[in-house]
């Protein structure tokens, strides 16, 4: 994806972005390819939403009503979710997840929407930070979502069902095959293929899980200290409690 860029991009990172971008348009577990691309397009479009800007400035998002500046391709509840993730994720509450997100589009659909949005934000964030044009969204491919829910997924540590590490059945995908299964790895585990895909992207853009505490080895041009400082700075700017 970056062969013609004016700065060399690591081949593992280039491959990870190509893989992530191709997956965007493919049918997922709960959403078809077209819906996944519509989520990506809405997420990009949402950046100029006046309602969202007014809500972020209000003490509580729920006190400001109105209509989103939207492409209107998704259902209203889905548009609300995408805009909230884009503009005001830090103030999402358990009640909003239960009453608006899960009740509005379904639990699996919500978790997969989160994964699609996170993928687009990660790749767009990379190109934006470098001042490069964003990638064109891929054409959606046909096919139906599998709707395969892990049998042992349940409400446990999060506001959505998760699959505790080691509890996948033999015939199910292990969402933790390349990670340790800490809470952030469990967040999307209701949709195991999205968990794997997102943390593959994470490993390429940040560090593989196995390298996080290997302080004696530097894996990137940035040192461990520099990487962790930057990660912490971004988290602090976003007021992320986790």
């Amino acid at each position, binding site marked *: 994806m970056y062969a013609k860029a004016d*700065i*060399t991009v*690591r081949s593992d990172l280039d491959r990870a972005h190509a893989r992530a971008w191709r997956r965007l348009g493919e049918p997922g577990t709960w959403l078809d390819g077209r819906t996944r691309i519509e989520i990506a397009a809405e997420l990009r479009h949402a950046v100029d939403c006046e309602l969202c800007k007014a809500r972020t400035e209000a003490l509580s998002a729920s006190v400001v009503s109105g209509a989103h500046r939207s492409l209107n391709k998704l259902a209203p509840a889905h548009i609300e979710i995408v805009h909230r*993730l884009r503009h005001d994720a*830090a103030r*999402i*509450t358990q009640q909003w*997840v239960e009453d608006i*997100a899960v009740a509005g589009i379904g639990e699996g659909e919500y*978790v997969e929407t*989160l994964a699609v*949005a*996170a*993928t687009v*934000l*990660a790749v767009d*964030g*990379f*190109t*934006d*930070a*470098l*001042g490069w044009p964003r990638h064109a969204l891929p054409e959606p491919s046909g096919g139906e979502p599998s709707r395969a829910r892990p049998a042992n997924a349940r409400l446990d540590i*999060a*506001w959505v069902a*998760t699959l505790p590490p080691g509890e996948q059945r033999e015939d199910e995908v292990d969402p933790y095959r390349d990670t340790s299964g*800490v*809470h*952030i790895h469990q*967040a*999307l585990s209701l949709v195991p293929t999205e968990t794997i895909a*997102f943390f593959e992207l*994470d490993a390429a*853009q*940040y560090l593989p899980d196995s390298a*996080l*505490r290997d*302080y*004696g080895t530097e894996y*990137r*041009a*940035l*040192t*461990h*200290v*520099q990487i*962790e*400082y*930057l*990660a*912490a*700075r*971004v*988290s*602090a*700017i*976003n*007021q992320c*409690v*986790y």
Partner: protein
Amino acid sequence: MLLRGSGEHNREALALEGIMPNAGMTSGFAGEDVLAELADAFYASDPKRLATARERLRDALGDDALVDAAGIIGIFDAVVRVADGTGVPLEDYKDEASAGFRPALGINRFHPDKP
């Protein structure tokens, strides 16, 4: 915690408060200023400031470091939303290990309603 761990490995006494925007202090390691400015400029909706921040980082740390930094900004802009959108709590062991410095950083004041 990983910042503290990596600093301890290098026997660097890092001031963790320096990660906070507008803290008025630095953590105390090479390249901190250009990394902080790239992150802050990314969220400032000011293309000119972001372009300047890129060039400063490139001059100070090199092209490969700029690519790494862009990757980290992008992925953490996403990871925070995964955490916020699902409500996953901090692990108990991380909560205990960070209890000593979280109040000083002001993290507990972000969203006291969250786990």
